[in-house]
């Protein structure tokens, strides 16, 4: 009965020439999003994925169980020496991510252009 979370993977190249893997989420990020968040992340080939960018533009609702899934992804990414960034969070969820400290391990950008320019 809960909204399903959708996830899509895009491969882009930053202006600096680096390959960036964008995970675009749509729907809720909640306890039901395990497949969409961790499952999708785990399909990425570890050897060629060094920069991961999370797109939250189409996400309206994130709860603490959803944030825990993002943290689990950050743990796996840290173990694989990948860097994770994010964009598209509302001002409210930017505040929430900052409060729980996620921003220490996943840099936030206002939009995709700003993110790519910095990567």
């Amino acid at each position, binding site marked *: 009965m809960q909204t399903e979370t959708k996830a899509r993977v895009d491969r882009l190249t930053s202006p600096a020439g680096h390959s960036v893997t964008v995970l675009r989420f749509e729907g809720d990020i909640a306890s039901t999003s395990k497949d969409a968040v961790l499952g999708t992340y785990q399909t990425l080939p570890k050897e060629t994925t060094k920069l991961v960018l999370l797109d939250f533009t189409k996400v309206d609702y994130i*709860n603490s169980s959803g944030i825990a*899934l993002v943290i689990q992804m950050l743990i796996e990414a840290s173990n694989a020496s990948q860097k994770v960034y994010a964009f598209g969070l509302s001002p409210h969820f930017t505040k929430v991510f900052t409060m729980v400290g996620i921003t220490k391990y996943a840099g936030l950008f206002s939009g995709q252009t700003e993110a790519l320019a910095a990567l």
Partner: protein
Amino acid sequence: MTNTKSTSVEVRLPSRLGYEKVAMSTAAAVAKLMGFREERIEDLKTAVAEACINAIEHGNRLNEGLSVGVVLSSVDDALEVKVIDDGKGLKTIPPKPDIDRKIHGEEDPRGMGMFLIQALVDEAEWVKGGNGKSSYVRLVIRLDKEAE
């Protein structure tokens, strides 16, 4: 339908994950009627959602035969929200989550709900039910809080 305090709204939800979104919408509508700013309404929505999720998961242990009560009372310039479940209530207030410990696997990646509630509202209090039932968390959010 009598004898309800005229400035209070009550909602009763099934103990099923996802229904916290119904409480969020109801709370947001009450806060909007009271004149809260959009930013504070977002804070309230997240706090109410986390309180309902805990009531559903921990208090009522996902037993759909039990429901979660949400009582929204406007008192002067404040909105008080009680989220009531049928559990025994909290044993202890958990420690503040530590992102470094979480990333290094020294702490469960979960355990952020109560921290967020406390960080987002002006008052948060967990009260154990007298008879090992009807425990609740009581949140207060005030209109026009200066410091933000």
